[in-house]
């Protein structure tokens, strides 16, 4: 195996806009909000940036294609800016590109920024995706909730789990995230909810109800990366470094062959395995302090606990209900509130997840600060269970 990225690149600074229905803010405003915070945190000037990667997904309601929207919004000094798009995992892709550039020595300091302005569509939920000219002629005009809801039917069938029990477990996923989000001033949704509210909410895509679905928000997040040496030279201490950056992409096997059983996300397992190897993690349940996973829907988070090896197969239902992933649990998940409370401005989410872990590892997470976390895992999933892009990243304190 290749050497990997472990401890070669450190975070110099991060920023994250307030997420929410930002009726007052354009994508440019959101970018600037995240950028200003990240630059202040890093303590550098724009001319110290060597290159930038820009993650945004929607063409119709977002900022448009190419690198220019970011160059203009932030008045960057004509550095190279590359737009990356990889479904909902785009934010993690921008991070990966910036980290690789620094690790390669192509630049000293790189910026990755993700933004999405979803609340200019005129309706709730994500816009309908465009998928070329062939797929619409046979594939259902599918929406994300129903794509992910299918995990539930296959998971129940495979493990013989009662529909009501699974519904209660996924309700717990959302109740937990809302409890966490209530402590986060940057979250879109900051109100706790009850299990009863979850269970009684209107159905969006059976068996998912309204509270099983993440919010739809505007937001931006930014990270500035450099080498540990440069970071130290700029006076940084207690560095957070990258331990693993892995992306796995479907090749049609899940969607076309009869081998995948539909109850899990294949690429998540592939990416997790590679990430643990790259980071040198052998016992994830003990070595990972916290996770920020792609809880676009409650059922996604539940099966992800198994995909990441944090629950045994078929046991996530019980682990979730037993509170293993609550704030006080064995491996807290979505301590910032997750997509559930932040919503999912597509291009920004992966970086927003990193932001929370960065704050936690530095002990700067305020009311929701965990006790002594050392390593965090970020799981960012784009597409749908049967065909997707999945990123698993691990960051931790330097030397851990």
């Amino acid at each position, binding site marked *: 195996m290749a050497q990997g990225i472990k401890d070669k690149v450190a975070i110099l600074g991060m920023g994250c806009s307030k997420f929410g229905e930002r009726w007052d803010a354009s994508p440019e405003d959101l970018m600037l909000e995240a950028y200003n915070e990240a630059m202040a945190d890093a303590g550098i000037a724009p001319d110290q940036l060597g290159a930038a990667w820009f993650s945004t997904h929607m063409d119709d309601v977002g900022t448009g294609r190419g690198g220019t929207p970011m160059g203009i919004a932030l008045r960057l000094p004509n550095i190279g800016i590359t737009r990356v798009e990889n479904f909902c995992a785009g934010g993690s892709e921008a991070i990966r590109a910036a980290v690789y550039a620094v690790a390669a020595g192509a630049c000293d300091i790189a910026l990755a920024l993700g933004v999405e302005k979803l609340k200019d569509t005129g309706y709730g939920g994500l816009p309908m995706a465009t998928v070329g000219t062939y797929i619409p002629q046979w594939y259902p005009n599918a929406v994300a909730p129903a794509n992910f809801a299918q995990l539930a*039917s296959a998971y129940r069938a495979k493990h013989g789990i009662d529909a009501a029990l699974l519904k209660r477990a996924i309700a717990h996923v959302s109740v937990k995230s809302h409890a966490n989000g209530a402590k986060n001033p940057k979250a879109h949704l900051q109100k706790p909810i009850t299990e009863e509210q979850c269970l009684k909410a209107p159905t969006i895509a059976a068996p998912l109800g309204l509270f099983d679905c993440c919010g739809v928000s505007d937001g931006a997040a930014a990270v500035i990366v450099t080498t540990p040496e440069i970071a130290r030279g700029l006076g940084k201490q207690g560095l957070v470094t990258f331990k693993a950056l892995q992306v796995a992409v479907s090749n049609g096997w899940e969607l076309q062959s009869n081998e995948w059983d539909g109850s899990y996300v294949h690429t998540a397992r592939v990416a997790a395995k590679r990430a643990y190897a790259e980071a040198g993690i052998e016992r994830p349940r003990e070595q990972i302090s916290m996770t920020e996973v792609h809880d676009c829907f409650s059922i996604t988070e539940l099966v992800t606990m198994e995909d990441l090896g944090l629950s045994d197969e078929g046991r996530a239902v019980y682990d979730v209900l037993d509170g293993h992933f609550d704030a006080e649990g064995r491996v807290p998940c979505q301590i910032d509130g997750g997509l559930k409370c932040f919503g999912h401005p597509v291009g920004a989410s992966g970086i927003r997840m990193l932001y929370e872990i960065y704050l936690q590892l530095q002990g700067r997470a305020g009311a929701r600060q965990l006790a002594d976390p050392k390593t965090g895992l970020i799981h960012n999933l784009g597409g749908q269970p049967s065909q997707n892009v999945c990123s698993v990243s691990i960051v931790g304190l330097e030397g851990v």
Partner: protein
Amino acid sequence: MIGITAYGGYVPRLRLSRQAAAQANAWYAPQFGGRKGTRAFAHWDEDSITLAVAAARDCLGPVGQRDRSTVRALLLASDTLPFAERLNAAVVAGALDLDEGIEALDLGGTQRAALSAFTQAVARVQAGGGDTLVLAADNRRTRAASAQELEYGDAAAALLVGTQNVLAEYLGAGTVTADFVDHFRAAGEDLDYHWEERWVRDEGITKLVPRAVQAALAQAGVAAAEVDHFIFPTTFAKMDQQLAKACGIRAEAVVDNLGDSVGDSGVPHGLLLLAQLLERARPGQRIVLAQFGSGAQALVFRVTEAIDGFKPARGVGEWLARGVEERHYTRFLSFKGQLQLERGMRGEQDKKTALSTAWRHHRALQALVAGRCEVTGSVHFPPSRLTYDAQPLQDTQKPHPLADRPARILSWSAEYLSWHPAPPHHYGQIDFEGGGRILMDFTDLEVGEVDSGTAMEMVFRVKDVDDRRGFTRYFWKATPVRGASKT
């Protein structure tokens, strides 16, 4: 001997309660208060093309059961074909995966077009042109609170005409062609305009149909008294009985016209009643089938000893038994395109079809033909140059039809988020016996009817309608195998 060598039909599952429709319109049209029974109506994703495909599949049976290469022509009779230009029969032929060397033709313009299609098929077979598939389908629009709304129905029928294993021998035909305008519909219009019913009955049907029947009997060399079954689709009460009497046919020979359950389906109705009759007809029985429209036409058949050797895939009898009564009158209106429901912004999505893409993949899209790797046996939908196997192989896939293979649900959901004409929109992953998986739309099902493991079958349906450009695209959908038990 030339005659019918296979038959089938199709009646949509949905049956509008006439009482429910009459009640909904009672404030406006109280005269329909006493109407009873149901009428069949097409689901939102059914039109005359898909109805015809369903009937043809009922007639031909699953791929592999009958050699479809013997079918050398397809005649599609309908007064409600979705395309004025684009051969509707070619869409049907594509769905049936028939040989591209066949001749295919659309016919219409009169309620008796299916009978004309039949005599054309006979002429073709006589001339040595090979087996000819005669299909008829209609899906008529009517005005809300009209008599036709309650009396019409949607259905399709199929007859295969040939010389081998003839089930019902064709004995003769009689035709009267006359521009007797009981109703008409101008090109480009949706709705019929009718003249007074009493005039139609007394001057039209009563005078023109017996001439056609008598001519047909004369050509067939069959005496009226020898007729065992007399089929005449009509919405006029006792009209069939009166005609039988006028022609000298026994009263008990009159075949029930399914007015109580299906309604009058239009062009296909004669063939539909014939297909139903053939399910119970006995060898030696003589059948007269007559239909009215721009004159009249009649056909005469004699059932052969081979009749018990054939069964349609389901048969009209089973389609009838699968009906479910629909009491939501607005659902009927909406499915018929007569009610403008709120779609929300998600309903604004452009459904433009890239026709070049459609043609490039036409066999996969029209006939649901996957690609099966000759080496590993892995099945791919859509077909591709490289297999998904761990060691991908190139250009090893051969056509592998999926439309008639047993299938089950792997995973599914039903959502209320996107705009869909029949919410909740059901879809999921379907696994086929013998390999192959498609994430596809489900149709014609009730909430709570399916789960992982439910047995499903494939039906050819409207995939999307491009309202902006007037184009309809078709694909296959999964629907529960009715009566099948879950595993």
